[in-house]
């Protein structure tokens, strides 16, 4: 039996949608017991596709299935008194609780942070929200698009002469979830010294603003407001995407020697003599001219050929991939990155595996729970509700 790093840690995931779910998923994949608490209608991620065979069904949402692996699933309506009683019993037994209700809803559900910490002084609560609970934007409604915009990512993405672009999927929520996991883990460590839990707040807006490499520094230090450049890079060229016969490669010749090798590789070393292309800054200033000269070489070749040839020449170059490409990617296959996840409603589906590997306490594959799948196990066997009572709770819509 392989060791589980977070063995014995119990997590209550009361969150909806992505951020809290990814936090719980990460903790569960390294051995914590994660109980996902949904209202009886189910997490709204269950209603988001794509679905198996494109037919909406609460058990076959790709988003829910991916984000909730390795969790036990129960349903509790926290607005009802009986539901709040169940929550209290679960909270009393939990180490970590993840939620994204916001303070008003928490109050209405009888789940204020003060009360929960009274029920369980060792509890670590993790609240992931878009803006935090204080400040001028505290009551703003957040979505991934809003966070891409306020977090400074959109201004930097897309063509300079047209509207900026969002990223793929709900990245801001994922980043919130990752910070939530870090906060929860750090609090576990603190609790060993203090014997008590604490409250962790992760504002997604702040997470986004903290994840810029140059943007804020260039403004504060140099008064420069960095702006999007399409697929080009602020300080040198060629760092961009080039079209090939059958797709695109991601050229990233950031060092001068790499750019020079590229010129030799494509048989255009004469360009190195051209004053317009003398160094990275010049090539950037004349990027349109430069690209017009080199693009034909790329367009005559397949992306795979270009990718491998560049790497042979020690030129940093990647591929632009689709989901289909990735499932056949030799690097991912050699590393056995993909796992097959079997689920009663979807059958066997390929999922990404471990985001990192630990030699002694390996990552655990698993599947998402059916709605209310573990009601009997947790409410019945653990909390002691009798079968007739569970039926009554079900009839009343509490579970």
């Amino acid at each position, binding site marked *: 039996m392989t060791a589980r790093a977070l063995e014995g840690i119990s997590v209550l995931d009361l969150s909806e949608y992505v951020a809290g779910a990814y936090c719980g998923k990460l903790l569960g994949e390294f051995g914590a017991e994660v109980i996902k608490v949904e209202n009886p209608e189910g997490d709204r991620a269950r209603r988001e596709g794509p679905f198996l065979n494109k037919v909406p069904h609460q058990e076959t949402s790709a988003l829910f299935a991916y984000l909730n692996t390795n969790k036990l699933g129960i349903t509790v309506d926290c607005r009802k008194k009986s539901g709040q009683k169940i929550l209290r019993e679960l909270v009393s037994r939990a180490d970590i609780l993840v939620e994204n209700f916001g303070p008003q809803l928490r109050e209405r559900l009888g789940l204020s942070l003060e009360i929960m910490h009274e029920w369980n002084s060792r509890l670590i609560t993790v609240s992931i929200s878009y803006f935090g609970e204080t400040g001028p934007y505290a009551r703003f409604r957040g979505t991934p698009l809003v966070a891409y*915009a306020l977090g400074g990512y959109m201004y930097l*993405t897309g063509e300079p002469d047209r509207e900026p672009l969002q990223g793929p999927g709900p990245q801001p929520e994922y980043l919130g979830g990752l*910070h939530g996991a870090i906060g929860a883990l750090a609090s576990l460590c603190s609790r060993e010294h203090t014997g008590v839990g604490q409250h962790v707040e992760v504002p997604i807006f702040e997470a986004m603003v903290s994840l810029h490499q140059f943007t804020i520094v260039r403004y504060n230090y140099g008064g420069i407001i960095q702006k999007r450049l399409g697929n080009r890079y602020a300080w040198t060229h060629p760092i961009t995407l080039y079209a090939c016969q059958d797709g695109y490669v991601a050229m990233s010749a950031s060092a001068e020697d790499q750019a020079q090798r590229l010129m030799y590789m494509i048989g255009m070393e004469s360009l190195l003599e051209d004053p317009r292309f003398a160094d990275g800054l010049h090539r950037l200033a004349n990027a349109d001219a430069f690209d017009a000269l080199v693009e034909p070489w790329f367009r005559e070749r397949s992306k795979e050929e270009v990718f491998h040839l560049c790497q042979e020449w020690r030129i940093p170059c990647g591929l632009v991939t689709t989901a289909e490409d990735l499932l056949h990617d030799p690097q991912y296959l050699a590393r056995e990155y993909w796992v097959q996840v079997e689920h009663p409603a979807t059958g066997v589906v390929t999922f990404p595996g471990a985001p990192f590997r630990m030699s002694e306490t390996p990552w655990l594959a698993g599947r998402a729970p059916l709605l209310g799948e573990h009601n009997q196990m947790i409410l019945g066997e653990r909390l002691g509700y009798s079968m007739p009572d569970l039926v009554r709770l079900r009839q009343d819509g509490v579970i």
Partner: protein
Amino acid sequence: MVLPLTGVRILDLSRVWSGPLATRILADLGAEVIKIEVGGQADRSKTAIPEAVAKMMGTFPNGIPGDQPWNRNGTSIDFNRNKMSVTINLTSSGGRDLFRRLVAIGDVVLENYSPRVMRNFGLDYAALREINPHLIMVSMPGYGMDGPYRDYVAYGTSLEPQAGFSGLMGYPDKGPYKLGVAYPDPVAALHAAAAVLIAYWHRQKTGQGQYIDLSQMEAATALIGEFIVGYGLTGEVPSSLGNRHPYMAPHGCYPCQGEDRWLVISVGSDEEWCALCRVIGRPELAADERFADQLNRWHHQDDLDEIISAWTQNIDHRVAMRILQDAGVAAGAVLDAEEMAHDEHLAERGFFWEIPHPAAGTFSYPGLPIRFSSLALGARLPAPLLGEHNEHVFIDLLGLSREDLADLGHEGAIDLVSA
């Protein structure tokens, strides 16, 4: 104050963004991070920088590189608060011996070299665990520690498309696109920080160290997992939605008053839609059949986008955001660097930390976006000068003498020219 990682000593060999960000988070959480810097490496090579280049980069105080630009680069100062710096030359056998002595008194080693490097130095996990059986070591190269691309050169700008992101981004008429930041870097950094915390927790329980193998590309693909799973469920290869959404509408980016000013709006309910109609002075649209419910709005997005743009183009984007949000509509101004730096919400929340630095002066930097109710986090130390802590680490921690240090300097194991 005892912080979560007080007493944890991390030897940080990493460079650029992903590793340094991971160790900055751990340092913010109380770890003692010793940045091991070798002269001539990308992070802090001791080369002069022409003023024209410094001005163009914008990462030197007021564009002035100074005599020691390696101690005045704002990006480096941003990433390396709460850390110490020593200069050890791992290409020298004396330097490697010195590193081994640090490993013996360390808890964590974190590196993001390409996979051959530590092995060629004789400093891979198998070797280091002989010195320190409880060691936690993290390797975080671009493609992975093994596999056919193991020795391939990777930067965030080439990994992001390869991890599957760019194929999911673009305009309706043009693509693919990359995000405007080297996104795999912070994604790997956050996963690495979590991994170290998990390994440390396990070690506190069991005494057992371990090796963490993190491929930056694999960590990145984890954040588009639902697209991969969706492909498996439908057989349809997912592609870009532009600024649209699978089911929310309106959902897009609208031009506002001024030069390159934009507002995003994402409406997820009929209530929000009605509120939007009132705010933009078109209450009759709430009764318009074309927009009666989400499905209908989704099918008439082109019309919606035109209607909304007609309103947004005459209003400042932050004013528009405020009006819409006050009415319960999810709207966000597309902020540039200046706007983020002066944002009223971030200011009131004390999000930016003002940190004085001996060589660069005082500037504001993003803080840690995790608030703990019973911990006071902050910048205990500014980013270190190159080699600033050579004496403290080698003399105080390792017990070497000044003569030892001089010898190590002469043989090239360390770089004595620190400050």
